[in-house]
Every structure is written in C-alpha cells, then in structure tokens.
C-alpha cells in the first residue's frame, strides 16, 4: 500500500474560495477543529475573479429596497424553479454578512454620507451591490483570508482531494494528495464541507480557471449524493472575444451598470428590440430613461442591457447569428459614449472600472474610455449542484455539506449577478455552522483502509506504463464538444451525440498518461481531473435532454418556449447501483403562502 499521512479534524472544508473560507471561519468559531483544503495557494481561488459586487438589500442608496424585493428579484431571475427557502434565507441574511465583512476589514466604496455604496446590476430592481470598484471578489477573499488566518484553522495549500471516504452511509473524510511531493493525505473528519466552485472548464470558451473542473460535484456524486439543475449553466453575456488568446475572459456587468450600452454592427441598441413580458413593467422603453436609471434617478426604469444574463446572452447570440455582429464574432459594448453625458467620463470610467480599463488596454490595445469593446457570451457559472437542505446545507449523505457554486437551489434557472458573492457568505456560514454542530453531536468515524487503498491505487493509474493518451488532448476534445453540442443553444440530437461522445472520452480517459513522477506534476493532475469533468459533463447533457423546454439559462432550439408543467420539477441525477447515471424529476414543494404573497405584491 502506498504510504500516506493522516490528518484528523472535526470538520474539513474542501475549497478555499469565499464559501469555503466563510464555512471554515464559522466552524472554527463554534469551537471545533477545522482543516481547510485549498487546491491552489490560499487567496487564489476563483472568487478573486468576481468583479461587480455582492447583492444585499441594505438600502443605503435606495431606501425602497428590502429583503422582500431582493427575494422576489431572485425568484423572478431564476424563473421560479429556485429553492424558495434558500432564496428567502439569502435575501434576509445577506445584509448581515456584508456588514460582517466590514467589521473584518473590508473597505467598500462609500456613499456621500459614508455608508457602503451600492450599484445597479442586471435583474436587481434597486442599486443593491456593495462593491469595491470592479474588484469586489478580491476584496472579499482577502478579507476572509486575513481574518481566517487568525482563527486557528489548519490550512492545507495545493492539496487536491481525489475521493470522499465513507463510514457506512456517513461521510468519514477524504483522500487527497499534496502537489509538491505528491504524497497522499488521509483526512479523517466527522463532517465535510464541499465548497469547490463550478464546472466552467468543461467548455471551451470560459471565464473559469483551470481549477473549475467540477470536483465537488463529482466527489459528491460518486459518494452517492444527488445533483440537481445541472442543465442550468450560465453563459455570461459579456466575455472578451479578441484577440483569440483572451477569448472568454470576463467583462463585468458593472460596465452596463455604469451606463455601458450594447450595439450591433449597424449601431443599433438591439436590446430594446426584445424585452420579455416578465420584465416589461420594470424596463425602460427609451435610451434617455435608461441613462437616467444608471445615474441614480429613482423615477427611471432600468435599461434593457440590465435584463437578466440568460436573456442578454441570447440576444447577443441572435445578433451574431443574423449577421449583425462585430468583426471578431461578438457585439459592441460601449462605455466611452458616456462622455456625451458627463464631462468627467474618462476619470469616472477609470475610477469605477479600473480592472476593465487595464484588462483591455493591456490585452487588446483598446482604451475603453475612447472606443467600444467587442464582447460575446462566455461560460461563467453553474447554477446546478449538490442537493442540500436549505437551512443546514447538508446533502443527502449524512455529514456531507455543500455551499456556494457547487451547491444548488438559490439561483434556479438563472443566477442574478451579485447573488453569487452573497450566496458564498450566507450559505458558507450556514454550512460551517451546521457542519460543526453535526460534528459535535455525532460520534467519531473510522477510516476504511480498503477504500483508501483502492482510491490511492486508482489515483496512481495514470503512471501505468501501458497508458498512451495525452490528458490535455482529451480535455480539449471534451471542451470543444461541450461547447458545440451542449452550449448556449441546444437541441436533442446534438446532445445525444454529446452523451455518446462522452462515453468515448470515458474510454480514452482510462488511457490518460501522466509522464514523469508524482512531484508537482500538472500532467498527472489533468489526468485525474478528467473523471470530474466527464462526470459533470454527462450530468449537464443528460439533465438538459430531460428538460424539454427553454427556461432561464437553458435554451432549446427544438423547444423554444417555456412549459408551465416543467416549472413544477427540478431535474435530479444520481449514481445508480450499476454505476450508470440515473435521471429523475423531483417535484418542487409548494411555496410558503407568505412568500407567494410577496412575489405577487412585487408584481
């Protein structure tokens, strides 16, 4: 048996982005011992990429805002297949989570009277996003990191989990390896929190980093947990499209929040052409009103550029497909035009969107204060994930919790911008709290050496002499196929081809070869990531086939309309006894009458 080092904690948290850090802090505050496992170095997780802000109805900028409006906006954005209990908890608790960050040292942009400033964002009725320029995610992760390192949490950096370990039905810890020396680590724990983020590396054009390979989704699935809503993959409407090497890098929605407009190659503001009925009442019908909204006029309605991401992305795809796109296959996003409206436009853009200014200047030779950007949709966020209890965040496996992007429920069929950072904090805290409680109330676990042996042996298979395939090629082929066949516009026959293609790629992945040795070897890592990527890709394709309608982020060319019958279900996948993927429908419980009232009241 290969050697391994043993670490024992009451709670281990897998993933050290916003949700993982917040969970670890909360669990530690409850007095249990906590281990925090980071795939990369601490503070580098994908949360740093979040730009626009975190949504919380603190009503500093518009006093009409409150949790009810936020709840209603979230449900509407998610096309009512959200877990309404989570949407309620989120809207109620987000304000405290934001204030808490300030108490831990975060320095948000300020209102003239010295409070936390809030900005406009798609699908939010009032300016609601607490922010720091366009680097809010960095502020959040650094605040949690700098606070967290003084809370007695044991941090394991550059450690990758390869399997969850179980003691009977209950989770008992995880098998992992540390990158530098390639040594295996067994983490024995009474409770495990998954906070591993998303799955964006399953697609070719993506705003996600190499880490986003669906690890938590896949670990939980193979341990017997249920995944839900996997068909709902968010394609952010605005990623960079040119030059080719930067394709997919995110352009924050904050650009539109600050007054940026979308135009086609005829110079038309095409977003005015198609405003969904659900949003007609709330949306400006002329450019002047839209501009006033972005400048804080409370009597104005929001411009159509700030409709939900699923809709904006689809409108952009329509323009490109019908020949009205920009030279490099996108559309134009123009913030420079605001110089017609305000004298300080250049300084204002640099102050409110500094990262965007530098990103375009350095990577595309574009000065966004003077010329428009070219943008197009990019894979951004996974609404689907591990099924959890709304209050405790515990999955269907006792002792296994999940929070943040790898969990499911809050966002329904489409996430509103800004609801992710608040999700991480609200449910990260809850997961940490209830994992600590579970660990305190339940006895110890034992580690089954046979599971450790089997998983260790499996993890070392890529070094087998008989293997021949380059793991990077398999990954690239998967990304290409998912982009083409299960991307932003879907139809049944292509997705069936994708399922068959994934079957072939599973076979190839069994031959994926890692050259060299176990020490700091990205080739080995890429070979091991394939199982996770293939698992989530299959779940996405099979769930998307099951949902025969267009709703939120799922757009089906063969079923272009919403089907009210399908609003009653979530699609769930689970590993069957024979190892195959089982797809089923789960009825959404009736919404609590008082919440239903709120939705009606908000129109």
């Amino acid at each position, binding site marked *: 048996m290969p050697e391994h080092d043993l670490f024992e904690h009451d709670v281990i948290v897998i993933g050290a982005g916003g949700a993982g850090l917040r969970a670890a802090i909360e669990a530690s505050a409850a007095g249990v011992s906590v281990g925090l496992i980071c795939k*990369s*170095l601490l*503070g*580098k997780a*994908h949360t*740093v*990429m979040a730009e626009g802000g975190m949504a919380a109805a603190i009503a500093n900028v518009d006093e009409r805002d409150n949790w009810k409006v936020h709840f209603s906006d979230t449900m509407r954005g998610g096309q009512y297949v959200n877990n309404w209990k989570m949407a309620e908890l989120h809207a109620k608790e987000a304000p405290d989570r934001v*204030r808490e960050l*300030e*108490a*831990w*040292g975060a*320095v948000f*942009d*300020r209102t003239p*009277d*010295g*409070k*936390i*400033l809030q900005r406009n964002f798609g699908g939010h009725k009032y300016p609601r996003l607490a922010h*720091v*320029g366009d*680097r809010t995610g*960095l502020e959040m992760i*650094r605040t949690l990191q*700098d*606070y967290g*390192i*003084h809370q007695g949490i044991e941090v394991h950096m550059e450690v990758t989990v390869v399997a969850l370990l179980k003691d009977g039905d209950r989770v008992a810890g995880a098998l992992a390896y540390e990158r*530098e020396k390639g040594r295996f680590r067994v983490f024995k724990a009474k409770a495990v929190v998954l906070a591993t983020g998303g799955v964006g590396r399953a697609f070719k054009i993506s705003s996600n*980093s*190499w880490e986003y390979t669906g690890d938590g989704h896949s670990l939980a699935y193979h341990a017997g947990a249920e995944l839900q809503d996997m068909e709902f993959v968010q394609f952010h409407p605005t990623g960079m499209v*040119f*030059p*080719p*090497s*930067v394709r997919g*890098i*995110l352009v924050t929605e904050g650009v539109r929040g600050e007054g940026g407009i979308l135009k086609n190659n005829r110079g038309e503001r095409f977003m005015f052409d198609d405003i969904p009925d659900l949003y007609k009442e709330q949306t400006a019908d002329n450019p002047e009103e839209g501009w006033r909204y972005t400048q804080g006029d409370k009597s104005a309605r929001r411009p159509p550029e700030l409709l939900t991401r699923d809709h904006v992305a689809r409108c952009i795809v329509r323009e490109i497909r019908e020949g009205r796109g920009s030279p490099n296959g996108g559309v134009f996003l123009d913030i420079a035009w605001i110089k017609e409206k305000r004298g300080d436009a250049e300084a204002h853009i640099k102050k409110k969107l500094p*990262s965007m200014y*530098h990103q375009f200047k*350095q*990577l*595309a030779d574009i000065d966004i204060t003077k010329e428009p950007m070219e943008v197009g949709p990019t894979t951004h966020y996974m609404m689907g994930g591990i099924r959890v209890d709304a209050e405790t965040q515990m999955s269907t496996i006792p002792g296994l919790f999940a929070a943040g992007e790898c969990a499911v429920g809050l966002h329904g069929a489409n996430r509103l911008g800004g609801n992710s950072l608040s999700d991480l904090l609200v449910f990260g805290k809850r997961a940490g709290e209830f994992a600590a409680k579970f660990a305190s109330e339940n006895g110890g676990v034992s580690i089954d050496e046979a599971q450790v042996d089997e998983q260790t042996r499996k993890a070392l298979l890529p070094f087998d002499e008989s293997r021949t395939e*380059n*793991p*990077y*090629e398999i990954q*690239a082929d998967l990304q290409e196929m998912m982009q083409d066949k299960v991307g932003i516009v879907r139809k049944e026959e292509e997705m069936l081809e994708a399922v068959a293609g994934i079957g072939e790629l599973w076979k190839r992945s069994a031959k994926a*070869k890692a*050259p*060299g*040795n176990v*020490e*700091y*070897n*990205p*080739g*080995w890592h*890429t070979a091991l990531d394939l199982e996770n990527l293939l698992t989530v890709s299959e779940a996405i394709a099979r769930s998307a086939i099951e949902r025969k309608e267009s709703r939120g982020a799922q757009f089906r060319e063969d079923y272009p309309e919403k089907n009210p019958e399908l609003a009653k279900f979530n699609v769930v996948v689970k590993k069957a006894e024979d190892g195959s993927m089982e797809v089923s429908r789960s009825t959404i419980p009736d919404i609590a009458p008082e919440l239903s009232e709120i939705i009606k009241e908000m129109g």
Partner: protein
Amino acid sequence: MKTARFKLWRGERGEGEFVEYETKITEGMVVLDAVLQIQAEQANDLACRWNCKAGKCGSCSAEVNGMPKLMCMTRLNSLPMDKPVTVEPMRAFPSIRDLATDVSWNYGVKEKIRPFAPREPDAEDGTWRMSQKDVDRVQEFRKCIECFLCQDVCHVLRDHHMHEDFIGPRFLVYAAALEMHPLDTDDRLKDLKDDSNIGLCNITKCCTKVCPEHITITDNAIIPLKERVVDEFYDPVKRFLKLFRRK
C-alpha cells in the same frame, strides 16, 4: 503559422537548466498562453502556477527575459521575438520544480502582523461611517493581488537573503493598509521598527516598478510608514516631551 522559441527553466530544488521549445503563436498571445501550450503539447509535466489568466489572482509570477512579470499579462508582441523568450521562476524564493517556487515564507510573515482591530461601530445598527476620501489610499493598497513580484525584486530579500529580518514590500503595503485604515485602532509602529526592520528598505523603488497593480508602494506606503516610525521613536522634540511627561 508563425512560431516562436522559448527557453523554459526546467529542474528541481534549484538544480536545472533552460530547455528550448518551439511553439506556434497567434495574435494577442501572452507568455502564459505559450507556456500552457507547450505544457499541453510537448511537456505535460511542466510545473507552473496559474489561475485566472486575467491579472487578478497573482499566481503566474515568473521572470520573463529576466524581468519579474505576471505571465498572463505579458504579451508576446511586447518582447523581442528574434531570439528565444526566457522564462524562469522567481529567484528570491526556493525552487520547487520548473516555474513553481516555494512562497510559503510570505504566508508565515503575514500571520505575524497584528490583525485588523476596528473601533466600536459608529451607528446603533453596528455599522461605520467612512468618507470615500479617507478610504482612497487604503483601497490603493488593497488592490494587491499577492503575486510577490515586489518581494522577488527587493534586493534586501533577493540579494541579501534577509528573510528572517525583513518583511518585504508586500507586507509593508499590508501594514500600511492596516495602519491607515480609518477604523483600525491597533499600533504596529514598534513592530515595524523592531521586527519588520522597515529601516532596511533604502527606497530604490524597484518594487513599485514591477507592481502589476500599479500600487505606488514606496511613495504611498513605505515612506509614510517610515515617517511615522521616525516621528514616533526618533523625533528629538517628542522624545524630550515624553521625558518631561514621565516626570
């Protein structure tokens, strides 16, 4: 298809050599694109760190043609392409393998700096009031992505190896962000003088020059901290008054 040559440092624990690779290049490519392409096509086990590929996480720090850079923000068209582009790990930290270095020292240093300690909230709902003007300078410091390029280029660390005595520009910026935070109540000046040895910095401004976030490290963070330390401990008038007060 155009190609370009790259000399990547390959090796372990400081023992190694430059290995030359040729790879195809397309418009707009950055050094990280080329390195990842070489990794995917020719050298699957090439060790390097990266995450966001957008200059926001500070993972892909390296020395490109001898200059400390983020690989993801260094465009090939900014480099002379008639000779191979050299890429090597940061030299101020121990080598692990290929382009990856052991930066754990930085994490240890941060833990030793006194954490944020806010004053009592200003309002009954537990919130504070700060004006934008007062947080501007702290926000500049908080842009730091912890790429550690400033540490890499700091001669106190790189040439004199004084990691035991000196915390380096990154953590002087961190300390400045805490000291100048409008809500913070702690005092780190004595630590800065005695433990961090801020006096070892002789303001060559190399750190400012390499900062990918354009933080004016020396002028806005280090010099004001030095002035505060001097005011606190070396101001003759103040010392005299203190003497007087003690009596």
